[in-house]
């Protein structure tokens, strides 16, 4: 039946597709200073062309160190920034074609964001019930007060809080409980897609475990799709189906989680995995890799990682590697591509 065929096509289509997404920030000094001191404009390429897709019901994580552009990608996807270049398609709809707020609203309702700092992302003057009900009111999903109240109570129970908590203010809750409130707020518009920007990095480990377990349970129960941003590789491994490693605004390796940890290809991924202290590593000796992440205003020529890379040669200094797919793993590295670097 054609209806089934159409449904199957929807199933197969990734919920989110991002193509050659880029975002620049102008960090120049004011015009007058520039004229007086003869300086050029300074452009920071926070995201310099990333492409990925997230199939329905799965989790894609982006990892990387500070300044690699992972949070900018998250903000671009939910529309907090407008892209300089590239396309974002939610369930096949190109966000750039929806110009008015009204046209965007039905798509926006389907995605929500959870922020890093649960102390800054909840309005301290609002009661928890109003915070959670805001998306419901903003999208006009329900009109009736009683109905909204019932829905808020249900959401609070879903994230492990009590219905009575809707009368309280955010300051009455601990960090972990506030993050639960953020999750309840994100879920209130019945989204299919959640962008989670470091949702547990402000939390203690035992509370982090509670939140990660909750997010996994909710994903299974509600069939949610996650774009998960984190600098913590262990957390990312726990949460993700696929992982993208970012360095200076680009994805350098994108692979299924298990593959990435079993056989990291890109030298930067290897460095990251090598650098992380782990419980299993008591008494381990290791050789830390030197150098720091260069400034994204003046990224190195060729492959941005070459100044820190032990395998770099002249080609790496001159020519930026493209993301190449081999055996289901995408990697941007000349050394891997040429076979200089064993897998």
């Amino acid at each position, binding site marked *: 039946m054609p209806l089934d065929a159409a449904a199957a096509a929807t199933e197969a289509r990734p919920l989110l597709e991002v193509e050659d997404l880029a975002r620049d920030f102008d960090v120049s000094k004011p015009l007058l200073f520039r004229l007086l001191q003869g300086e050029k404009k300074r452009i920071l390429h926070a995201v310099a062309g990333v492409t990925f897709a997230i199939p329905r019901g799965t989790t894609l994580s982006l990892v990387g160190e500070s300044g690699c552009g992972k949070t900018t990608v998250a903000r671009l996807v939910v529309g907090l920034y407008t892209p300089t270049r590239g396309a974002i398609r939610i369930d096949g709809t190109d966000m750039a074609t929806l110009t008015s707020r009204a046209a965007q609203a039905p798509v926006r309702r389907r995605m929500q964001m959870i922020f890093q700092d649960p102390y800054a992302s909840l309005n301290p003057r609002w009661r928890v019930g109003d915070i959670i009900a805001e998306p419901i009111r903003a999208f006009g999903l329900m009109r009736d007060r009683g109905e909204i109240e019932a829905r808020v109570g249900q959401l609070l129970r879903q994230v492990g809080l009590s219905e009575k908590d809707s009368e309280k203010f955010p300051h009455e809750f601990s960090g972990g409980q506030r993050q639960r409130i953020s999750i309840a707020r994100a879920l209130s518009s019945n989204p299919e897609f959640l962008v989670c920007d470091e949702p547990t990095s402000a939390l203690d*480990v035992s509370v982090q*475990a509670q939140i990660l377990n909750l997010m996994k349970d909710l994903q299974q129960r509600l069939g949610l799709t996650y774009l998960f941003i984190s600098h913590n590789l262990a957390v990312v491994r*726990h949460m993700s189906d696929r992982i993208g490693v970012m360095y200076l605004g680009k994805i350098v390796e994108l692979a299924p*989680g298990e593959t990435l940890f079993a056989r990291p290809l890109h030298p930067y991924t290897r*460095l*990251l995995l090598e650098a992380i202290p782990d419980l299993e590593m008591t008494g381990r000796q290791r050789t830390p*890799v030197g150098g*720091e992440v260069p400034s994204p205003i003046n990224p190195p020529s060729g492959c941005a990682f070459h100044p820190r890379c032990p395998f770099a040669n002249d080609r790496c200094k001159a020519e930026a590697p493209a993301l190449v797919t081999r055996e289901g793993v995408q990697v941007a590295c000349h050394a891997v591509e040429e076979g200089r670097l064993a897998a």
Partner: protein
Amino acid sequence: MPLLEVRNLRVEFPTRRGVLTAVDDVSFSIDEGEVLGVVGESGAGKSITGTAIIRLIEPPGRIAGGEVLLAGRRIDNIAPEEMRHVRGKQIGAIFQDPLTTLNPLYSIGRQLAETMQTHLGLSDRDARARAIRWLEDVGIPGAAQRIDAYPHQFSGGMRQRVVIALALCAEPKLVIADEPTTALDVSIQAQVIALLKRLCREHGTAVMLVTHDMGVIAETADRVAVMYAGRIAEIGPVRDVVKGARHPYTEGLMGSIPSLTHRVERLRQIDGSMPRLTDIPRGCAFNPRCTKVFDRCRIERPDLMATDGPTRAACWLYAKGEARDAA
């Protein structure tokens, strides 16, 4: 004789709503050249313990009881002027944020030289020469040129290297490092930890490493003390605490950390959160969250006691007569 001995340390903060006990009857010791890790979640009292030892607690907080002995000599009751010579000369300190540790108005060379001149009585020229050597030693490229640079001209990782040089340059016997790598990225963190480990081994410096990151502790420390609600819950050799924790809190804490080497469907979770200092439960502070709780835990507070493993834990499961029925 241990290098540092802390006996029944108690730190209180008087507030309008009563006295809060941030550190409650904590005892431990550090041997010469040993690295003791102190872990715990926010509010467990780990940083306060560190700052109490060097007597830098912000008023109105105060040491309300106990003794701190450095090489057998009490330092918790000496005059503030004398304590200033102990800090820096005998105990170095490294804090989380290098920007607040370094004076932004002085060049790093001047800060290093001043520290060494105060504590070691060097001449200007010697102090400068030694400052350059220290900067080379902590891996700052072009040390001789960069010695006159100011803190803002360095990156975060480089600043923390300068802070390490500053803490070690008067050759103290003990360094208290409070979350030294928390503000840094993982690849920089690995460099800084390796540096701290190497320098302390070379100079025979003991380290009290305070952090919330079990991974850092697992790699760096010889022994570890796990703190909960102002008390030590468990203390012992690092491998035994990580792999064979005896205290239910430590066990839960280790299980709740996602691992890099193996994947689990669900993380072990400890329900609830650490009590606030204003309402610490009667008996064992962990009892409302503990899965193995029994009557005695709700009434009597346990002290550290021997367990059936190499660690010591503050848990009634290991009191004589109780141990068997729990196992």
